């Protein structure tokens, strides 16, 4: 009985740190959102490339967000009033804006967000969740590849996040979608050569932050 109880506790504990479903399939699969800037479309000789538009995009620089993609599964995502954001935070000081490992932004070009320049590199992304007031946070906190309470140099998700490594903060534009997105999605929207916006959508909530590419 004790053994079963221990096994149950261990299982529950395991689920809280790394949620694994049937067949070892994570309940929140990994995802990436990518954009490319500063490249050129080059049409090869002859009948063209087997790509939309018949040309290849060459010399582009990548901007990429990697994250865990939780599913809504019928839940109320945000709550309201004193409980706003409480479920998404799961006791952490800030939202990881994803699942499992911290959400990461990798950029090969300098970006300008809210008047601040973000040098090429890799960062962690968080969102400070307040009702009708979301703040996008780019941090120098490293991401721990797995939950390790002894690792004080890197974060798992947003557990033990502190703001001292913030690179920038920016208010997000909140919009209500005409449909409900089941699986949390980061995406690049309204992209042009000079920039665009990073957008997160879950349920009917979309939140975005504009950025410029520094030429």
């Amino acid at each position, binding site marked *: 009985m004790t053994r079963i109880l221990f096994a149950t506790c261990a299982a529950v504990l395991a689920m809280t740190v790394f949620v694994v479903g049937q067949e070892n399939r994570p309940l929140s699969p990994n995802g990436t959102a990518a954009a490319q800037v500063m490249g050129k479309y080059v049409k090869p000789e002859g009948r063209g490339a087997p790509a939309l538009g018949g040309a290849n995009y060459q010399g582009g620089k990548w901007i990429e967000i990697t994250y865990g993609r939780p599913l809504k599964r*019928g839940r109320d995502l945000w709550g309201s009033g004193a409980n706003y954001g409480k479920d998404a935070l799961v006791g952490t000081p800030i939202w990881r804006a994803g699942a499992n490992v911290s959400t990461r932004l990798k950029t090969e070009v300098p970006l300008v967000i809210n008047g601040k320049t973000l040098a090429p590199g890799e960062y962690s992304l968080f969102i400070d969740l307040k009702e009708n007031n979301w703040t996008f946070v780019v941090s120098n906190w490293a991401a721990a590849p797995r939950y390790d309470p002894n690792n004080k140099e890197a974060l798992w998700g947003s557990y033990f996040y502190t703001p001292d490594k913030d690179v920038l903060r920016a208010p997000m534009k909140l919009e209500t979608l005409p449909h409900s*997105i089941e699986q949390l999605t980061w995406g690049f929207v309204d992209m042009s050569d000079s920039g665009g916006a990073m957008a997160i959508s879950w349920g009917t909530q979309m939140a975005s932050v504009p950025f410029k590419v520094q030429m």
Partner: protein
Amino acid sequence: MNPDAPVWRAGANVSTQLKTEVPLTINGKTVAPGTYTVFIDLKPSAWTLIVSRWPAQTDYDPSNKAALWGAYEYTPDKDIVRTQMMLATLPFSVDQLAWEFTDMTETGGRLSIMWDKTMASVPFKIGS
């Protein structure tokens, strides 16, 4: 979109695939649990979602006639379902093509594809 591909692969590279552990009903037809390829027949203002039994190649192999790479040499003889998609215009432009499940409930939802300002979706029910 491509002279050699009669329908759109609705993605890039390897064929887009739908894998389901439960039977789904789309446009009155049952899609039994399994893995299928998904294509879209693109006509102006009329997109048709196709669920096909064509297997997907994992790497392009022109000598493999038993499976498709993307939508190259697709034929409709292995179609299971064809259904008209609902087209909507988004208030923003999506840069990277995205398939999403939208408006999900216990009984079903919609399969949705978004690219640029176009969103196209089809409803499905869980169960046969």
